[in-house]
């Protein structure tokens, strides 16, 4: 019969198995990250803070905050905020509406929403430009109602419209995916305790969907503030955002232009990090973000 041995055994220390295999699978990737993700960022900082002779200077940075560049910075931030806000106000009710459909239809609508995302930004923006031209289809359509042709293009309105047009799906999807996961019984509990439709949304759905909202805001604000093609094509390059200036400078491909380009990119990065820190304050308490 099974029993207990009474004599104690000599204690033997076990040798640790080397974690070589683990290191081997992660090492190539780790090396790649070091070389091609971290080092490039270091070099952006390097070119920001050096002059053509390689000496340390803050002139590039100061240049960024000079009058002309600063106006561009301000404009970029303002337009990005506008388009993010508009996207949010359009997307939230839409997400609620989609969540009410039958599951099959929900998938269909989401698929349709995702379709434009897969089309190249250039094509999407260009097709919008096509639509908005003075003698273009939209004005033709409005002309049917006797409205005179409107100059849509070459205005901040066009740029914001372009941003909203391109990035709206990026706001809808995270919000929708969070709302769809809310346990329907929570809404039933709210109604059981006396809330009507609107109250249920404000008191239950909205607080629970905050992580989706934060995701959406991040996914719209970041590309909006850094875009250049939208502004370039919808205003023929006349209204310039940070992205335009960076693109213009970098494309000259000489050291001086690299420096100002890096400095601008550096400031852009800082702006984005700051905005993400702010939004994460309001976001999910465990730092969860829906992608």
């Amino acid at each position, binding site marked *: 019969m099974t029993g207990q041995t009474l004599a104690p055994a000599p204690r033997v220390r076990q040798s640790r198995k080397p974690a070589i295999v683990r290191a081997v699978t992660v090492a190539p*990737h780790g090396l790649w990250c070091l070389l091609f993700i971290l080092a490039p960022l270091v070099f952006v900082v390097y070119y920001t803070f050096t002059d053509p002779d390689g000496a340390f200077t803050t002139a590039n940075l100061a240049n960024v905050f000079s009058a002309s560049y600063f106006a561009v910075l301000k404009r970029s931030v303002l337009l990005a905020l506008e388009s993010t806000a508009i996207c949010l106000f359009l997307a939230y009710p839409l997400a609620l509406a989609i969540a009410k459909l039958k599951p099959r239809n929900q998938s269909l609508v989401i698929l349709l929403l995702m379709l434009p995302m897969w089309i*190249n930004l250039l*094509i999407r923006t*260009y097709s919008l430009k096509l639509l908005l031209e003075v003698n273009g289809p939209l004005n033709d359509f409005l002309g049917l109602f006797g409205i005179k042709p409107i100059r849509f293009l070459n205005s901040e309105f066009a740029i914001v419209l372009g941003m909203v047009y391109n990035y709206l799906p990026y706001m809808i999807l995270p919000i929708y995916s969070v709302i769809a996961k809310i346990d329907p019984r929570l809404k039933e509990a709210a109604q059981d305790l006396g809330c009507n439709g609107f109250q249920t949304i404000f008191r239950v759905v909205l607080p629970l969907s905050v992580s989706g909202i934060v995701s959406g805001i991040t996914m719209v604000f970041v590309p909006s503030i850094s875009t250049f093609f939208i502004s370039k094509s919808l205003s023929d390059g006349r209204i310039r955002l940070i992205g335009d200036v960076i693109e213009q400078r970098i494309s000259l491909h000489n050291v001086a232009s*690299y420096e100002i380009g890096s400095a601008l990119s550096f400031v852009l990065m800082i702006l984005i990090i700051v905005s993400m820190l702010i939004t994460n304050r309001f976001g999910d308490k465990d730092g969860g973000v829906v992608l």
Partner: protein
Amino acid sequence: MKTLSRVYIALILLFLFAPIIVMMLFSFNSAKSTAAFAGFSFKWYGELFRDEKAGEALLNTLKLAVLSSVIATVLGTLAAVGLSRLKRRWVRNTIQSVTNIPMMNPDIVTAVSMLMFFVFVGGMLGIATRSFMTVLIAHVTFNLPYVILSVTPKIRQMDKHLLEAAQDLGCTPIETFFRVELPVILPGILSGLLMAFTLSIDDFIITQFTKGEGFYTLPTYIYSMTKRSVSPKMYALSTLIFLVILVLLILSNVLQAQMDARRDPKKIAARALKKKKKMKEN
């Protein structure tokens, strides 16, 4: 309330698709102007097919996409598997955060940073700062986080006991990886591959900054076309790209649904029942 919701959804969808549909229409326009639709014609498609540069750009795009997505998938899958086994949490989190930087950063910042890296290194080593190699490296870099993002959930969802069961039944750790782990996480790997491929095809600014002179991918080629006065050739190209993407998306969704159905117990039971009924009838 219901109809209001539906109308709203329809309006937004219309808003999103109208410009693209208009562009598609005008790609068949026999006249050049966008002012009026003169008549139906395929001539811009014809011009497009005769455009050598466009053909070259297409080839380059595909070459780049296939190479970068495969490399990123191999590196990323290995990394995801390795990371899931890591015991020290801080190492795992650091590597994951660093990997995600290209995903969080706007395209243009990633593009500038990679260019600065290549400029510096190229200057020091005396090699070309921009070439096919540099574009390829850049593409792999921004594809990696998406592959890891695709594969990691599948690894996490996998029953850890499966690996122990395989070893219990006599498989060495390497055999376990190939006979059990890989097949089970395959859906994640494939969707990561597809995602990387699509992102690569779609990328503009990173390619624009890191490519060499005279090298064009479809997006950069479209950009160069928009700089000059636009020929409706571009609308034709855009329409074609849209249709291809549409087909790919439908295909991937159908495949995904099929794969899910094969593994869904309820559906399997339903199919088995159907089979039995059929056999009884015969």
